[in-house]
Structures are given as structure tokens and as C-alpha cells.
């Protein structure tokens, strides 16, 4: 496999709130290779955005802080990098499409001003040339009447148009790593297809490594090489896109895939995993998913599971995949789960 471009090692990002310390990202490790598209999926609130903000050193602080762990980008540990160095990296070597466009578009400046600034940050160009380039970019992401839209303010655009402005901005610098946090949530499927094509081109032409956070498993199937599944601040499963979608191992992933509404079926009631994510706290013991897991047994409530091997380059944070477990307990559940 080609070189690793980004590697997270045991990353911990916590929020220090009035009601205690919240380990929003609790020991996350994964790799992104050059030219690879890695998907991140998981329950709402499980720490996907905080993980990506940590990579960019953009976690709001206070109350948030990277407590420990490494973020290796090429030969550097970004968790230790200075703000000055991070400013060079952001929007240049690593760029990010944020989940909520309004948080990163300034309501007081026109779309054009913001794009031109982004373009001129890493390319020598006159304002006029940059404006032409900005209009080209708006066209590329399928925005009609682009020559008018450059002079408009964010509130004059529809939700999906704003999202595409952000995408244009993030892709304008041919980054080495692109972090895309729910980049297509506000887009209809035909424009989504167009944007995914653009991302694929970037990925192929510049060998860009892409970290794609999305809850749309259809997008995952189309775009990703590998998938990381998160639950309550931890990685609970990892594998190739085919393995995860066709043969999920972790009980949470199984539930997730069962919840998908299918366009060709007429089901009355959708499946959903019973219960809600518990409040994560520092004192927690046991598997985070145990209270909602239909396979849970005693050990799950008293001990923390690690990421166990579940095949070649596959892992699952579940005691059912602990080889010692098979001899002890639950082997009947095991066979049931693996069937």
C-alpha cells in the first residue's frame, strides 16, 4: 500500500465543562494513505467532527483541548504544531469542508471576497484574475448565475449553494489531505453526484487523501476505500468498504446498517437501535454500546473491550471477537453473530 499521509494515534480530545470532563474523542487511531478515501461513520454526537477539528487544531478552546495523542502529517506531529505553522497548513496542505457552512462563511462579506481571499492565500494572482477564478470555481460546483452570486452575501444563497461555496473553497488549493465533514448533506442527489465526481478527480489527479465523514451509507459505498466506524468517542470497527457494508462485525455497525431506509422496499416501521447514546464521562467502565446491545453479556458491563482482530486489516471493539472469550463464554452468541 502507498504511503501514509495522515495518522492519528490514540487521540484524546476532551471538553472541560461545568458538569465535568467530557471525553468527546477517547483514544482514536486510524490512518489515511495517499490517494485513499477513508470514510468515517457513526452515531450523531460520537465525535466525528471533534476528531476532524482536532486535526486542524480548531477545537474551541476553552472548553476543548487535545489532552494526548499524536496527529502525524508527513513528518510532523500536528498536535504539537504552533499556531503559525497550523495557519500555513490550513486551507493549503490540509483543507476542510465544515459540517455547517454558516460557521465558516462570514455573513458580512460577499461570496466573492471570501473566495478571492482563499485563492490569493496560496497563489500569486491579481484580484481580477482571482475573481475570474472564483467564478470558474462556482461554475465547477454547479452554481448557476455564478457571475451574480460572487457579489451576493451568504444569506442570499440556499443551503446547498452555501455548502458548494465551501467545497469550492476547500478544493481550490489542491490539498494533500481533504477533510470533508458531511459535505453533501444539503445537496440533492444529482448535484451530489457531481460533487462526488469532483472529489474523486481531486483524489485521482493529485493523489489527495480524503477523510470523508458522512452518515449517508450510499455515499460511503460509492466513494470510500476503507471505513472507520465510531461510537461514543471511540473507533469500534474498521475494514474495507465492502466488508463494513456487507459483513459488519460490531453490533453497533450491524444495527446501523439495518436502520437504512431502502428505496425499493415498503416497510412500515424502520428499524432503529433501541435506546440512546449514554452520557460519556470519565468514570465509565465497560463497553460503551453495552446498554443498547442485544448480544451484551456480563463482561461487557465490567471491562473495556479493545479493538480485536476480526480478519485481515479488520478490527472490532467487541468481546465477541476476543479470542480468549471464545473458550470462556458466549460462544453460542458468537456463532450467531458471525452467521
Amino acid at each position, binding site marked *: 500500500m502507498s504511503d501514509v499521509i495522515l495518522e492519528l494515534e490514540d487521540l484524546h480530545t476532551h471538553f472541560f465543562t461545568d458538569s465535568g470532563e467530557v471525553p468527546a474523542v477517547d483514544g482514536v487511531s486510524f490512518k489515511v494513505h495517499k490517494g485513499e478515501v477513508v470514510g468515517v461513520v457513526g452515531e450523531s454526537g460520537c465525535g466525528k467532527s471533534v476528531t476532524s477539528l482536532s486535526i486542524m487544531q480548531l477545537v474551541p478552546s476553552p472548553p476543548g483541548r487535545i489532552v494526548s495523542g499524536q496527529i502525524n502529517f508527513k513528518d510532523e506531529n500536528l498536535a504539537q504544531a504552533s499556531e503559525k505553522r497550523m495557519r500555513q497548513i490550513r486551507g493549503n496542505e490540509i483543507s476542510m469542508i465544515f459540517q455547517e457552512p454558516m460557521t465558516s462563511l462570514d455573513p458580512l462579506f460577499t461570496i466573492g471576497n471570501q473566495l478571492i481571499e482563499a485563492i490569493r492565500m496560496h497563489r500569486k494572482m491579481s484580484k481580477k484574475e482571482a475573481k475570474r477564478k472564483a467564478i470558474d470555481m462556482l461554475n465547477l460546483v454547479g452554481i*448557476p448565475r455564478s457571475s451574480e452570486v460572487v457579489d451576493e452575501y451568504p444569506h442570499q444563497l440556499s*443551503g446547498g449553494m452555501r455548502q458548494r461555496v465551501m467545497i469550492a473553497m476547500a478544493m481550490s488549493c489542491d490539498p494533500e489531505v481533504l477533510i470533508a465533514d458531511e459535505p453533501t448533506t444539503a445537496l440533492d*442527489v444529482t448535484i451530489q*453526484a457531481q460533487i462526488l465526481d469532483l472529489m474523486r478527480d481531486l483524489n485521482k489527479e493529485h493523489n489527495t487523501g480524503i477523510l470523508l465523514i458522512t452518515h449517508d451509507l*450510499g455515499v460511503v459505498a460509492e466513494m470510500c476505500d476503507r471505513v472507520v466506524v465510531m461510537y461514543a468517542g471511540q473507533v469500534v470497527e474498521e475494514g474495507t*468498504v465492502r466488508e463494513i457494508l456487507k459483513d459488519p462485525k460490531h453490533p453497533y455497525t450491524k444495527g446501523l446498517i439495518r*436502520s437504512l*431506509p431502502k428505496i425499493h422496499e415498503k416497510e412500515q*416501521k424502520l428499524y432503529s437501535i433501541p435506546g440512546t447514546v449514554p452520557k460519556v464521562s470519565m468514570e465509565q467502565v465497560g463497553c460503551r454500546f453495552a446498554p443498547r446491545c442485544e448480544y451484551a453479556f456480563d463482561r461487557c458491563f465490567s471491562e473495556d473491550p479493545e479493538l480485536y482482530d476480526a480478519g485481515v486489516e479488520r478490527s472490532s471493539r467487541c468481546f465477541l471477537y476476543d479470542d480468549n472469550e471464545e473458550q470462556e463464554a458466549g460462544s453460542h452468541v458468537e456463532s450467531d453473530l458471525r452467521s
Partner: protein
Amino acid sequence: MSNPILEVNNLKKYFDVKGGVFGRKVGEVKAVDDVTFTVNEGEILGIVGESGCGKSTTGKALLRLIEPTDGEVKFEDQDITQLDDEAMRKLRKDMQIIFQDPYASLNPRHTVEKIVGEPLLVHGMKSAEERKKRVKELLEVVGLRPFHASRYPHQFSGGQRQRIGIARALANNPKLIICDEPVSALDVSVQSQILNLMSDLRDEFNLTYIFIAHDLSVVKHISDRVGVMYLGKLVELADKDELYENPKHPYTQALLSAVPVADPDVIGDRVILEGDVPSPSNPPTGCPFHTRCPAAMDICSEVKPEFKEDSDQHYVACHLYD
């Protein structure tokens, strides 16, 4: 039996385009251009369509959160475009909206308790004790926890914020809720919870929803009928099973073919739309879709196709069905 709760006739919303040094009006964006439909009591009407085609603008114009340029909106037989502010304010108890952008629609300085409790106060729940109780109930209903009440919007993830917006809309047991992409930021399991919840509430209280979303499987699951918008206009409207099994408009056909499937072995057989995406400030003559339509004929660039019933309760605006 079907009893219309909302009747929309020839609704239009044009925004001014300003330009030049003096910021004078140089044109108009025809965001919603002559849309007519009815929603029955207890019905869920799905609306899908291209980004920027006017879905959110339609939703906001129905509640007069932006003033319609023209047209009639009848809620329970009353034309609400004629109401004064006070009457409109009272009516908002019955008509609610879940905004597309949860971040922009939640006041960052207020706690969730205040955000969800405010509509209760406005519509007469004076006791703080009672409000607190109701807020807790509502948070639980949307899968958040009571301790979340004292937090501020920025302390939540995207999907959690979306659920705060849903809780707020449900606060006063409204009759009609306009849901603008209410589940777009949620993972599929939480999404199923919310969709099931919304169906249950409908069954229990005979609620009516207009459900705007771009996820076609979600829309199919929840809706009774589905309308398809393109460039400010409704181009097709039918019962959901009919629409998905027998789409008539070429745009609807393209849309349905582009749905990504969560299976790496399924290779989509997509209709890729070529040609320029037209601008709502300068819409094409004739059929608005003709610049990209794979089936376009000569007549399409000249004559505007009428939105009419082609087969039983299946409406379409396309010359292929003349």
C-alpha cells in the same frame, strides 16, 4: 374524506437582484414561480428537487416568514396572506417550521431550555415549572437527555442541534409542521428514530407535514404524496408509490436514477444531466428543464408545458404527455 388543511394557489416569491455602484435593482430571482398544491389534514407531503430550486423559500413563504410576492395560501379555509401581524402571530402556534440550518436558527446565547421553552411562553404557558417539565418531555421525545436543557447550542454536535429544532417545533402541538431537511444531519439509526417518531405523532394527533428533503428514500418512506420541484416550479406530483414506480417527468427520472445505493456491488445506471444549469434570474423560455432534458423536443424551448393531471392524481408538467 380528504379534508384540505392547506391550499396554495399560484404562490410566487421573487427576490430583487441588486447591482452596480448604486445597488439598484437589476433583476429578479424567481425563487418560487407559480406553485399550486393542496395538503390534506393528516397527510405528509414530501417535496424534493434540485438544490436552489426554491424549496426552503416555499416553506418560509407559506408561514409568511418571508412575504410572498403573489398568490394565495389558505390554511383551514382562511387566506393567511391577508392577515395582520397579530392574527398571524396567533396562527403560528398551529403552523410550525423546522429550519434547514439548525446552527443559524438557534440563538447561540440561549440555553436549550430557553430555546425550546420560548414558544410555550409566547403561547401562554406562564408557569416556569410547567415549562420546565414540558421541555424535558420534548427533549426525551427527540432522543436528547434532560441534562442537555442547560447547555448552549454550540455545545452540541450537528445532529443534536437538528433535534433541538425539532423539539422546539413540536412544543405547542401544532397542526401543520413544515420540515425543511429535518433529518439531513443525522446518522441512519437516529434518523429512523426521528422518522418513526414523526409518523407516530402524525397518527396520534393527526398532524400534517410538508417534508422537504433531498434523501429520496427518506421522503419515500415518510410521505403519502411527493412533489418534485425544478427551478421554482412544481414539475410533478403524485402518490409516492406511483411517483417512484412510474416517474413521468424526465427530471424526476434523472433524480431517481442518481440515488446512491449502500452496496458497493451495485453499479448505478445513472442519467447524468448535461447542459447548463439555468438561472432563476433568467429562466429559460418554454419548459424550464429543456436546457438539460435528454428527451427535449422543438416545442420544449418555445412553449411552457402546463402542470396538469396526466393519469389519476398524477400531475406532470411536460410536453411528452400532451
